[in-house]
């Protein structure tokens, strides 16, 4: 039994409008109602340590969704970048999102936080629509419906509505893949480039789009042993080399930011250097995961223990899903997920439960798996409960991820 089938009223409403619009919108509205409600209740009812930064003095609601890293985005949008070597600096945060905040701020009462909230939620809605469409292409409509709900109710899905880059990055990633799937290489490259200006891992979209281009040339990994596969690929390259060139532009967002850092701070990798100030060291995924595991096994149950637990859990679950993604959606999606997981975990598993949010292929897989009714029944309610709890925690300045 599918959750959407249980809601004939919504079905009736959505009857005459395209499904890529109705279901994502429904998922968006229901999930946002949940987090906004939970957030508001938690903000009003639960005590918060005094002295925290207030994003918008005029709006309690806006300030609710601008915590932790949001300060840096607001700061970048309002004051520009700064870099203090070996100290926490806002160069760690990529520029597209704060740039949009600055540009939209005049439309949002000159409040960067409000602009961020607007961008995040709008991006999330669009991302859901495109994700629906992409999943429908790759899988089917049922999977698409479930995917958008699963994403919307994922325990840390409140970040999609917070002043964080998660929603924008997911939008650009999904959109780039959607365009690639449609063979709109130019738009895919453009979106990929924007994604790489949103997060460093955005540059990985190049691999995903390129994989799709290879598929478009008739190349299959399973047929890599065959000579004709490579001959076809060679011919495709001769014929469409300009498309490869276009796709290669995707990391330009990252390179542009690096050049910006070099120009202003003489440190093109300042965004990497500053990570150390957050206690993130490039240990590699194995050691990082090992460290987290040790912490959990040490058994000292405290705040750090619990966050490690859910971060490691998220990492383990998404890593475990990679082979299934490979099998169900193809090597490109799987590689995209795997490399992002490796990069994210190389400096520790902290915040992993948030970093996995834009890994849409896993949610697509989950949507596919959700055709099993019992699983669907488990996933959505359990996700929703945890989402509500995490939201309450987040709005009270307790670190979630």
């Amino acid at each position, binding site marked *: 039994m599918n959750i959407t089938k249980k809601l004939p009223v919504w079905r009736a409403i959505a009857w005459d409008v395209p499904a890529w619009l109705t279901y994502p919108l429904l998922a968006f509205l229901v999930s946002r109602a949940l987090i906004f409600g939970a957030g508001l209740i938690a903000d009003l009812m639960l005590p918060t340590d005094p002295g925290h930064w207030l994003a918008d003095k005029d709006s309690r609601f806006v300030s609710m969704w601008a915590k932790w890293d949001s300060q840096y985005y607001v700061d*970048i*949008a309002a*004051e*520009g*970048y*700064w*870099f*203090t*070597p*070996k*100290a926490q600096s806002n160069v760690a945060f990529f*520029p*597209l999102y*704060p*740039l949009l905040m*600055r*540009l939209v701020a005049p439309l949002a009462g000159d409040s960067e936080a409000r602009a961020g909230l607007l961008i995040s939620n709008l991006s999330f809605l669009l991302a859901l629509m495109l994700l629906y469409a992409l999943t429908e292409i790759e899988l089917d409509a049922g999977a698409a419906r479930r995917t958008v709900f699963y994403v919307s109710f994922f325990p840390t899905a409140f970040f999609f509505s917070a002043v964080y880059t998660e929603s924008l990055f997911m939008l650009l990633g999904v959109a780039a893949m959607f365009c690639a799937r449609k063979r709109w290489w*130019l738009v895919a*490259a*453009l979106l990929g*480039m*924007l994604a790489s*200006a949103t997060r460093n891992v955005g540059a990985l979209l190049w691999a995903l789009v390129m994989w799709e281009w290879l598929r478009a040339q008739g190349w299959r990994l399973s047929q890599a042993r065959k000579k004709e596969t490579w001959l076809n690929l060679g011919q495709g390259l001769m014929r469409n*080399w*300009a*498309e490869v*060139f*276009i796709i290669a*532009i995707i990391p*330009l*967002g990252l390179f*542009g*930011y690096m*050049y*910006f850092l070099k*120009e*202003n*701070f*003489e*440190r093109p990798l300042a965004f990497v*250097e500053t990570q150390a100030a957050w206690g993130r060291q490039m240990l590699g995924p194995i050691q990082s995961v090992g460290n987290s595991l040790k912490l959990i096994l040490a058994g000292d149950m405290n705040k750090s223990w619990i966050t490690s637990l859910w971060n490691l859990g998220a990492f383990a679950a998404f890593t475990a899903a990679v082979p299934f993604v490979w099998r169900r959606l193809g090597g490109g999606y799987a590689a995209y997920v795997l490399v992002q997981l490796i990069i994210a975990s190389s400096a520790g598993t902290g915040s992993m439960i948030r970093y996995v949010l834009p890994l849409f292929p896993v949610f697509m897989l989950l949507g596919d798996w959700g055709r099993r009714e019992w699983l669907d029944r488990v996933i959505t309610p359990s996700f929703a409960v945890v989402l509500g709890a995490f939201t309450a925690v987040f709005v009270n300045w307790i670190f979630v991820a």
Partner: protein
Amino acid sequence: MKTLTIRPTFARVRERYAALESRLERLRERLPFLPRARVLLSIAALLAVAGLLYGAFKTVLAPKETFTDFTLPYVQNFDEVNLRRWFKHEGVWTVREGTLAQTVGGEHAAHLHIPYRLLADKPYHVSVYVTLKKDTRAAGISFNAQYPDMVEEQHRVFLARPSKERLELVSGYMDEAGSFVPQAQVPLDVNTTEYRIDVFVYDKTYLVLLNGQRLIEKRPLTYSSGLIGFYALGPAMFDTLKLTAADNPNPGDMVYTSDFDQEPGGAGWVPFNGTWRIADKTMSQSDPNVFDAGIGYETSTFQNFTLRATMHHTSGVGAGVLFNMPSPYQLNGAHVLRFSDETDAIIWGYYDGQGNLVRQGYKDVKPAGNDTYMFQVFSGENSYDIYLGESLLARDVPLTSTQGHVGLVTSRSAASFSQVEVYPLFGAKNGADSQQLTPVAPKPTLIPGVSDGTVHVSPTLKAGAAVTRTGRITATVGTPAAKVTVTPKPTRKAAEAPQATVVVAGTRAGTGKRIVATATPETTGTEAGGGSGVVVATRAANATAAPAGTSSYTSEFTGKVSEQGWRANSGQWSFAEGKFVQSNAEGFDSSAVYARELFKDFSLSATFAHDEGSGAGILFNMPDKGQLAGAHMVRYSERRSNAIIWGYYDETGRFKGQGFADVEPASTTKHTIRVVSSGSKYDIYLDDKPVVSDLPLQSESGYIGLITVRSSATFESVIVDGAKAKPREAKPASDGFNDLRVLNGTWNSDGGVFRQTVPNLADYLINTGAAGSVFTAEVKITLSNTPDVGGGLVFHMADRGSKKNAYVVRLRDGGKGIWWGSTDEAGKFKGQGSATLTGASKSFALKVVVKFDRASILVNDKEIVNDVPLSRPDGWIGLLAYGGPVTFENLKISVEQ
């Protein structure tokens, strides 16, 4: 309407796109490897978007303060500064009341760097004020910090307080292992918490000044260029960081033209006393009450240069220039050329290490008024020439400091300086190749208004100068071992009154040349009471003067004033408790005359103490007991308690100054003024120390009296001794020294031969009564056969009756060698050098040539050592025997003009 408007536009775009596409297709026909036009345009569009995106980043998100190079000069105040953009590592840095504060303690050093960088090849000078708090363990600055590893790779200069009792100035750098490597540690004795640190960073070395004094010299640089930052271990406060281009390593190349006429003007000038500001395109000092109000130009030092300064007084007189200043923030060590604030004269000299003015000369000039003058100084390798306008004031005046900063000064006057120029001296060589140089200056011409072409050499005077601020810190340098005096933060405390200290005066030299005192008129403008216009000479001649040297008088201030022979002409005079008191502190020229006797060729001494103000003294050779006209006078200045003035009242009763000398402040302590009137000359002593001698008398006999001006005083005794006034022509030719004083030992004097006979090995001294700053002393010394016996000269004695604080040059070990050195405040000898003498003779011709604080030593006309630094610039001269018998013959002391 809209549709109609859009459609043609859209159509036009399509047309242009099509045209571009077809053009690209045609190009593709020629270059077949090109992709389709649509692809090319797509790539172009994509790149355009990428460019736009980058442009947006750069425009919208660029740092508010970019990390760039310093623009010098750079001044960092802490009134409005956003520390968020600074590079902070540890600590809690805040701006409090216009200062930068590091507020937390703990084990971690706090660093804060300014997000600007210095160019690699530019020497610079950074200064900052540091205030130590109770719990400060270290505070200072870092420089040449290497971005982005500013903390791990930096030079650092800071004040460290390892314990409550200890404070030291430390400089060093961080090594590759991240450990601090000290390059210099200078222990300091502390009595203040505010300091100014100056660091001059050159190509390969740096040096450090603390409160304007160099404490760390030429330490090698490990890191070049970089960032400037603040460093603190524990709470500390910082203020006004200044960064300027440092001196050219060859200061002789430097040129400076003042910018007082520009907006903003006065770059590089740092006042250290007085009220200085740019006004009406001039640099003006507007407080006419401040002594030694100075301002230094800190950006450059100069060597072998010409300095020109154009100025005029706006109130009072006393302005001039400073040059060869070791520090631009204080007077210590600087040369000065300025108008006198006492008389119509120009004075020149230098401030010694303690900030006391040591005069090298003066020249009478017409009253300065508000006229515009141009001072010119031609500073060469060893000497300088000075001009007022184009007229020579003095030539080849010895330099005590051969290079340094320039500055402006006013003393008890306000003045405006319209232009200051410094440029290299023509023909000068600088640096290591520099040669002896005579300043190239215009030929001398007489100045209009200057009385004559004679240059007078003053006795050395000490007038407490800029260092009279907030007390003094005495610091002992660890490496090298020496005594260092650190003056507290120069510009942030209100100036206190100057503290004059010691008088070193003229000479009793019988054979040497006389020293002329500061024989300039004291323009007090006071009127003699009841001036009658009677011709003084006639009245004096008609008086019944006592025979020369026969009359004596010892005061007895009991009973009625008139009964004791005293006559009060003005003021409130009375006897009280055996003393003679003048109690009216407001009156001018309150005088009392001993009316019973006239005196000629006498010694008159009066012992008194001021009750209020200063201005008490004596009158002598008064032609008329009822008025001052024609009388000579010596008294404390009522305007400066640290000066005595002398002169006479002319026939109209107007005072004519003959000179003045800076002395210790009169205060309320007891002083004795003594004059020896002999023949046509008179000498002055203060507290048994000679002040000046051989002054011309206007009247050679007359009454004696007491005087106070705007002060009240109590006179304890007045003594006239006719026997002590020996006729000058009656000086014994045999020894030439008529004021000898034996300090210890058994000395015989016979025909100019002095012999000390006590055989025990100890120092035995005799003071010759001669004193001076620039002199040559020579004597033949014959030692006995006792193995360790020695003998020599002692000079620059601070005290006539003691060997404390003097300089000693003497033969040792029966003539096997010679050593030289100084005695400390306890009289303990501290060697500075020694040499071995060869030969079996027990007779030696010892000669010392002394110029202020430098001396050369010769034995048997052979130079042993030259240019020995002396701790003092002047003092008494004596003979010293170590054991006995030691014979001194042919003693000659020539005190130079």
